[in-house]
């Protein structure tokens, strides 16, 4: 996994609550057996005016000019600003894969669905929780200022606005450690394999029917 430390990135505002993972990456693209290449179909139903299917040449499709991520001023954005309960619904990890492939490294919202939140960290992405009030303020600033960027520092756990306003955010210590160092979870867990074996032996003795 790629490490994440700092980012000074252009912000794109997706002003909706409860954005679900079906919207982030529609089901027809889940037929792929690969982990990459989902970016061109992120938010497919909102982003294009025609119906998308795997294998289509997306550069030839009709773009929805009203969809915020299609606006010229947000091209190249790496920070997605959105509303509460982002990533609800299906557990599909294709959602963070699509967002990451699209170019987003950081998401800022007042809350996330649990599975999506967890999936982000497995892919070198940082989902940040800020209060609804701060998120509201950031939306106003993004809309008012073309080229609006935020400076995100995982080590210091801060988001800094262009005017120098600093917002602290919380992040779980273990997830932070993994993200800062780009650590593979499986490798870390395997360091405890003796403990897993010991637990398994005890567990099997107590509930042998689980091992039939």
């Amino acid at each position, binding site marked *: 996994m790629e490490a994440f430390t700092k980012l000074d990135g252009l912000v794109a505002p997706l002003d909706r609550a409860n954005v679900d993972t079906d919207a982030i990456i529609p089901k027809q693209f889940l037929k*792929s057996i690969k982990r990459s290449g989902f970016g061109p179909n992120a938010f497919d*139903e909102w982003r294009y005016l025609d119906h998308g299917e795997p294998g289509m040449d997306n550069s030839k499709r009709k773009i929805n000019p009203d969809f915020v991520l299609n606006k010229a001023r947000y091209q190249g954005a790496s920070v997605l600003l959105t509303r509460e309960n982002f990533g609800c619904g299906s557990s599909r990890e294709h959602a963070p894969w699509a967002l990451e492939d699209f170019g987003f490294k950081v998401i800022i919202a007042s809350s996330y669905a649990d599975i999506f939140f967890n999936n982000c960290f497995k892919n070198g992405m940082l989902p940040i929780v800020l209060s609804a009030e701060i998120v509201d303020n950031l939306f106003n600033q993004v809309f008012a200022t073309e080229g609006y960027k935020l400076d995100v520092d995982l080590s210091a756990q801060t988001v800094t606005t262009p005017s120098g306003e600093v917002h602290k955010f919380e992040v779980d210590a273990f997830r932070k450690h993994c993200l800062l160092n780009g650590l593979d979870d499986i490798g870390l867990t395997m360091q405890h394999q003796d403990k897993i074996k010991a637990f398994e032996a005890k567990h099997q003795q107590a509930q042998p029917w689980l091992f039939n």
Partner: protein
Amino acid sequence: MAKTLYDKLFDSHVVHEENGTALIYIDRHLVHEVTSPQAFEGLRLAGRKPWRISSIVATADHNTPTNGWDKGLAGIADPVARLQIETLTSNINEFGAKAYFPFMNKNQGIVHVVGPEQGATLPGMTVVCGDSHTSTHGAFGALAHGIGTSEVEHVMATQCLVQKKSKTMQVLVNGVLGKGVTAKDVALAIIGKTGTAGGNGYAIEFAGSAIRGLSMEGRMTLCNMAIEAGARAGLVAVDDKTIEYVKGRPFSPKADQWDAAVAYWKTLHTDSGAEFDTVVALNAEDIQPQVTWGTSPEMVVSIDGRVPSLDLAKNEVQRADWERAYAYMGLTPNTPINEINIDKVFIGSCTNSRIEDLRAAAAVAKGKHVAPNVKLALVVPGSGLVKAQAEQEGLDKIFIAAGFEWREPGCSMCLAMNADRLEPGERCASTSNRNFEGRQGQGGRTHLVSPEMAAAAAVAGHFVDVRQSLT
């Protein structure tokens, strides 16, 4: 110290804990074709093998067609879908599994229907699957939740999951449910009350006399929808119904282990005096048949209600959400729910495709006919075994005589990955779990209801209070 059921299940699976992050041991890993190929590929690239093959039970469900089975795999017109189904078979052949029910096997079906009916889901287990509706299995007093593909690979490689303990919520439903009011209505009424984000960060235990009164099928429906309330896990305490359901299933403990298993399972309930972080209470008598009107399961009202008007929205964000939902659903505020006409009906999904669901829908459809304005009414059994049971009971004949299509098992039009889907603008009464934009097909309009309400809507051509047709 008095413990909640969640605490008992979590604590008894902790392998290692450091600064509040735990490694928990996973007993059962359910696998399907959509969220596993990248995990198997990850194992392959790292030269890893599954830690314990006997924990893996796999089936193909999301992508599989529900008709044209006479042509076999070749009948899957979409080559990308076919490849994914074939890839599951080749991965299981390469890595192994305790059981694999491939496409068209007689035991194949929706992974959350297959697990319990095989006895592969047992009380006290930790169960994971790369699917958010894994919460279903919590109906057995098992700690079960959906995971992403990276975690699928992690569980395969290490038999463990990195977890932080959730907060606990008790949803207490006391009283007796009225006739025609089902577990689905309870689930939707709860979500209407808590919102779809209300359970974020929580494991929900459903308790109270109305929950104890539910069958195992009903409890599965309820726990299935816990994720729609935002909770990764839903739970119901073990009781005699749980034990009776599990008994004699293919992977259930056999005679020599049965008594010890039952003795342990009987401890799987919340101790008296244990405290929850949050408690939500509903009266069973207040719950009416529910119908969603919008694009989130929390946008729900009773059958005698109306599409809510904007002045009822709690804040600006919700107002904007509702305005988008009106436009997408093609509805205006204050429209009575029972005046909304439908184009299609879907009875199926991991929420409502078990034998009891099909019996209930058939009882409503029996001797009647699908309304002329309904273009398609699909019944998709949850598994091959559910289908066979239903056919043995003659339910298929009732549905077919009433103008429904009787299909092969799978996830089907719940998520429309296969050919079963809504066309743009089509409106559907669906027993599935999500009414998100595009969920059942781009531009499709989904209204979530119980199987009884779906069957009644199919016959009337619009939503109708099923209680009026029950004698």
